[in-house]
């Protein structure tokens, strides 16, 4: 697949034109945003297709090598230009002088390590876009990565995905480090964002932000209504809307899905998970998910009493799991929501050694075709890679819950980044990465 020339803008120019110059005064610098949300705050892994924190906060901490502007054109963000073909091989050259938030110099070795890391994790499914990818550092240029005989346009397209940010070689999800507008410090109960003085695309306007971990879906609304927070997650208040607050809706960053494992036996057949999900009246349960349209008839759980797993640490997953369990349970076919420690969950998921589970899947932001591949990755990695590697990757946009007919995945609803922002703040949507454009938030 190749993109026409006009879909690219000149190298090095678009990196800094993502936002038009419109303000006559300059945007105020300073301020600290306060919010809380129902997700774990102790680790963030941008190469994890199933990490909700990466979906909601990744653009604050990380940058991709390439990005798309508001018209969908690809431009170089961290590279010195678009991928080039030299002697039959595609190469990428990074901009000089890049540093991570901790001050570590970034060069092509880090790009190579980022690729390798992604390959070993769930984001690696999408490397099937480039089956000929063979990477090595250019011996004469520490900033240049040779990538083998791959299509330059496809390589740039892949590197636009928030699943493939440029990370320093020693990346640790519990001590995240990147080139984004903020530097993040993760604690068990909160995330502290501070302005990154080495930000490759410009430091944040804010001094920082404090994001606390909430234990349910109402804490943020309550705190926002009482003016203890500046952002209300999923609404403008619990009992009544906060005065002068403005709503925002920055689209969907992924989906909450119900998945059936091998222990569900006959009910683990492809398509059943979506029928089960359709039986959950998500739209009436205030689960913070975007309503689904065009639902087909659902079916109740008719299997043995079982557990519905969800990964420990995320209040949103817990609430969704509990409500799903309650809705699908019936006498003799009870379902009990049960949290599971992350490492154990990864093992069970890999082996499909469970009956029912609720989890999150990120939107890879590679186009409508990639949504089905992401959902398939929940089911089977090999199936997802087959979808990715198909030569034709054009597909009309369809609701995610209509893409799961032959998957063991059922979409419960889209996780949308929406809520309310207090007066005195300007908060834009991220043009390409989805969700909030954290680095461009500023006071009014």
């Amino acid at each position, binding site marked *: 697949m190749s993109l026409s020339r006009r879909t690219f803008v*000149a190298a090095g120019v678009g990196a800094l034109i993502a*936002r038009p*110059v419109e303000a*006559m*005064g*300059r945007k105020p610098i300073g301020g600290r945003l306060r919010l809380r949300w129902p997700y774990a705050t102790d680790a963030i892994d941008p190469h994890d297709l199933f990490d909700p924190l990466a979906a909601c906060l990744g653009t604050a901490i990380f940058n991709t090598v390439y990005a798309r502007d508001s018209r969908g054109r690809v431009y170089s963000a961290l590279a010195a230009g678009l991928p080039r073909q030299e002697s039959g091989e595609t190469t990428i050259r990074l901009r000089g002088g890049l540093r991570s938030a901790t001050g570590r110099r970034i060069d092509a070795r880090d790009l190579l390590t980022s690729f390798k890391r992604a390959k070993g994790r769930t984001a690696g499914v999408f490397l099937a876009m480039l089956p000929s990818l063979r990477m090595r550092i250019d011996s004469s240029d520490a900033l240049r990565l040779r990538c083998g005989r791959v299509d330059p346009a496809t390589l740039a397209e892949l590197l636009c995905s928030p699943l493939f940010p440029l990370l320093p070689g020693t990346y640790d999800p519990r001590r995240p480090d990147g080139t984004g507008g903020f530097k993040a410090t993760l604690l068990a109960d909160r995330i502290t964002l501070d302005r990154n003085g080495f930000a490759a695309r*410009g430091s944040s306007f804010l001094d920082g932000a404090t994001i606390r971990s909430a234990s349910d879906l109402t804490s943020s609304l309550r705190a926002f209504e009482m003016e203890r927070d500046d952002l209300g997650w999923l609404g403008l208040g619990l009992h009544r809307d906060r005065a002068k607050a403005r709503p925002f809706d920055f689209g969907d960053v992924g989906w909450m899905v119900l998945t059936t494992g091998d222990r569900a036996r006959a009910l683990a057949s492809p398509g059943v998970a979506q029928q089960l999900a359709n039986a959950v009246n998500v739209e009436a349960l205030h689960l913070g998910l975007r309503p689904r349209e065009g639902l087909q008839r659902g079916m109740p759980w008719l299997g043995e009493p079982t557990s519905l797993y969800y990964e420990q640490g995320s209040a949103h997953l817990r609430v969704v799991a509990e409500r799903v369990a309650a809705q699908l349970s019936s006498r003799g076919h009870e379902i009990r929501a049960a949290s599971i420690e992350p490492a154990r969950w990864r093992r069970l998921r890999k082996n499909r050694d469970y009956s029912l589970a609720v989890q999150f899947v990120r939107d890879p932001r590679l186009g409508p075709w990639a949504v089905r591949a992401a959902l398939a990755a929940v089911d089977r990695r090999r199936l997802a890679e087959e979808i990715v590697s198909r030569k034709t990757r054009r597909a009309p946009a369809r609701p995610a819950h209509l893409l799961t007919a032959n998957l063991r995945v059922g979409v419960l609803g889209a996780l949308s980044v929406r809520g309310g922002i207090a007066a005195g703040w300007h908060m834009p949507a991220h043009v390409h990465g989805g969700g909030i454009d954290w680095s*461009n938030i500023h006071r009014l």
Partner: protein
Amino acid sequence: MNPRAWVCCLLFVGVGLLPQRVSARAPAPTKSRTEAPADPSPTALSTVVAVVKRDLGQLPPGVIVASAPFTSDVKAPRAAALRLRLLQLVASSISRPPAAATVSRLVGATAAARKRGLAGFVWLRPEVRAGRLALTAEAYSVAATVWSRAARPGATLLRQVHAEARLDAQLRLYLTPLRIGEPRVEKFLGADHGIVALACGDIDADGRSEVVSMSRRRLLIARLAAGRVVREHDVSWASLSGIAPVPLREPLGTLTLVPRDDGPKMWIDASLSDRGQSVRLDDSFSVIATSPQRVVPFGSGSACVRMKSMYLDPKLSSCWGGPVVGLPARLPLRADAVASARIVRTDGTSQRWLAVRGPSGLRLHAGATGYALGQAGAQVAVGDLDQDGQPDVVSTRDVQQPRHDKVDVRSIASSGLVQPRFTLPVLAGVDAVAICPVDDAGVAPVVLASGGEIWLIR
């Protein structure tokens, strides 16, 4: 020395001591409150005199200087005084002892030279036109003996030289004062979008001002003609400098036109926070020098600063090597917008003014004296629009919505009084603003960039 020459000198001394005209807009000038020493920046008068002296070269000893009547395309109530002043300055610069004749015709100068037994004379033709003082100087020789006189009855032209300089406050004293009134706006289509800095001046010394614009993509030299921005030269930023390791999210750019030491053309000093290097360019956009620091205007030249926490660090230093008068120095505050100009005062001295915008608003400084001008937008220019020797500040509004933006022009009197002159709404917002050199009989024009247009405001 010929007694008549002494009379002329005395006449000149007398002219020099005439009281300065008092501005109608401000109290009479008092002793300057600034503490900054006036550094030797040329005035229009000194410029034309220096050029004439240089280009006339070696002259026969004992020439006298005479002048035609002064001509002007503007009303000049004190034209005679200006003529005499020029006569005195040229005479004192080229002849020892200074000798001037108060004749008003060439034949009279010839006769005066002969009568004194001099080898020749210099004939001046002073003129004010199109915002400039133009001085043509002709060196003549006269026949020394009766026989040579018979062969050559008149004077023989040896050399003709010409010098021009834009009007300044010292000259304006002799002319009708200007008034900054209601603006007249001309709009020119076809400018780049997203312009972050503008400059205006006669870069290539062809007698016409060009407009230089800087966007995040390129630098462009253009003329304004027939409602269009007509491109002359452009260069992409990508060909000048790589991207800065840590750019600003909201770009900070400056364009400064600096007179060259080696001729009448100008350097273009350009700096953009997106880019790792600031550059000095010539009028064809060839790179002359680069600097990793940010270039800002500083008087009639430029200076360099570093970025510090998303602002310009106050410490100013020389950009391109070599000493610069007034450096090292400091901005009065950490800034995100800087404008500067060296303004000639009515007494012929000059003063460097700095307009600096920081978190607390816009301030105007000259030496230790500063004026607070309140909140303002990030586009600012300073100059002497009406040639009264006092700074005029062009600023915009500190707004986030373009439709609320306006251009404000204010004058600062010698008393410190800030006088609003006019306000002009700009619905698409002001991207950049600059003051152009005087190019006609009126007030210096202002140019601004707004959403793909250049506005020329007179």
